[in-house]
């Protein structure tokens, strides 16, 4: 079964897999998580705001994103971003957007919907007395959000946010559909070049497995630690 297993193809391509592929995957994951969290928090605030129109818009956006498959959203943005860029910059033709920028925008917009639901739950978990006390102290809405509500909501939801980031890390492999060399894309390129599908895909699976396992173990540890604080 493993008799003609060629470990050397993995060793030869390690540099390409990790320096090019994994760097792309991890950078995309980190930036999308940060961007998605910021945009998602904004969506959560809109959704919880007293203004009917704002909460309606945020609700529609979140529901739309959550009912579409990520693959379709990746295609949508891949073709849409050049036109949005043209509209924003006033250029005469659709602008050229690189693979990284395009997938980053996609993941920020897509993950924002999921992060916003987590942040919404986090904000709602803060007892009503806290913003009330804040406004009694004379803090404005934005001050009470910035200094009182959001820091606590963020801390309470940290394990869930990190778990979602692990899911995001796995989901970035879907940029494969645009032939972008992320970690899986790089592995697949080597696999097809050298005709070594078995070795490369098994190796990719092991790498994803180890990283996700270690990360989710870390999240569980963190959860156990901050569970005592509350």
């Amino acid at each position, binding site marked *: 079964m493993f008799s003609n297993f060629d470990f050397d193809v993995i060793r030869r391509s390690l540099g390409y897999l990790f320096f090019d592929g994994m760097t792309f995957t991890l950078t995309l994951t980190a930036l999308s998580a940060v961007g998605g969290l910021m945009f998602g928090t904004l969506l959560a605030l809109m959704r919880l705001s007293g203004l009917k129109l704002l909460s309606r818009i945020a609700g529609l956006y979140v529901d739309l994103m959550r009912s579409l498959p990520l693959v379709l959203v990746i295609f949508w943005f891949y*073709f849409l971003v050049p036109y949005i860029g043209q509209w924003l910059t006033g250029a005469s033709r659709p602008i050229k957007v690189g693979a990284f920028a395009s997938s980053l925008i996609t993941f920020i917009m897509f993950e924002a919907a999921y992060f916003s639901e987590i942040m919404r739950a986090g904000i709602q978990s803060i007892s009503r007395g806290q913003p009330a006390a804040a406004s009694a102290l004379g803090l404005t809405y934005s001050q009470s959000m910035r200094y009182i509500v959001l820091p606590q909501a963020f801390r309470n939801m940290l394990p869930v946010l990190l778990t979602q980031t692990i899911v995001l890390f*796995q989901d970035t492999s879907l940029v494969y559909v645009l032939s972008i060399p992320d970690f899986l894309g790089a592995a697949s390129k080597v696999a097809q070049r050298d005709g070594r*599908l078995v070795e490369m895909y098994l190796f*990719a699976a092991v790498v*994803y497995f180890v990283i996700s396992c270690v990360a989710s173990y870390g999240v569980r540890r963190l959860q156990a630690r901050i569970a005592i604080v509350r």
Partner: protein
Amino acid sequence: MNYNWNWGIFWQPSPNGTGNYLDMLLSGLVLTIETALLAWIIALVLGTIVGVMRTLPSKTASTIGFCYVEFFRNIPLLVQLFLWFFVLPELLPRDAGMWLKQMPNAPFWTASIGVGLFMSVRVAEQLRAGIGSLPRGQKMAATALGLTTTQAYRYVLLPIAFRVILPPLTSEFLSTIKNTSVAITIGLIELTGQARAMQEFSFQVFEAFTAATVLYLLINIVVVIGMRFLERQVAIPGYISGK
């Protein structure tokens, strides 16, 4: 925006010669639904078994359940599909491998089983949480009444646990439908795949994707309404969301 909108494109004949572009998208929709339903059945059956195993007192059973969950949860779905589609036939004995490779509709079966296994973990985790949320007294009372462990699960724990987790199961079912689109990478031309094909043939990118989006939204609405109906049907009066 200098994009040529042409909403009439859906009624133009498609190059694969089986009707117009709308037929193409609808055939994709049917394939999406078929794949998702088969995957969902697999996910429910395996998820129930593994979810129950993780709550059993037996150490072995819960360890096996734990390993199963960790394996399928920590590898991206796309990589799992590649493993089933490209790697598995090579690792099997020659004859079995050839049989797998030459199987008609291989992408459909691979996608259904692959997505089903991937989602079974999510079902298992929901069910474990559902069983865990039941008061401990239920299991004890069942035992005190002389029910065996199997009977206690069959008649006491599972009927309630499934009712508790029905709302999260709805979203897992929706995820199953959405996840079938990942199978585009192993050559399953479902709804997203057909939209992509239509875009490549006709160059009407946004019409194709808008149509796919609308169809996905429709599936979502139908599922949500159907599951709400089911929730009302199975609700126990005076318990949980029962009236």
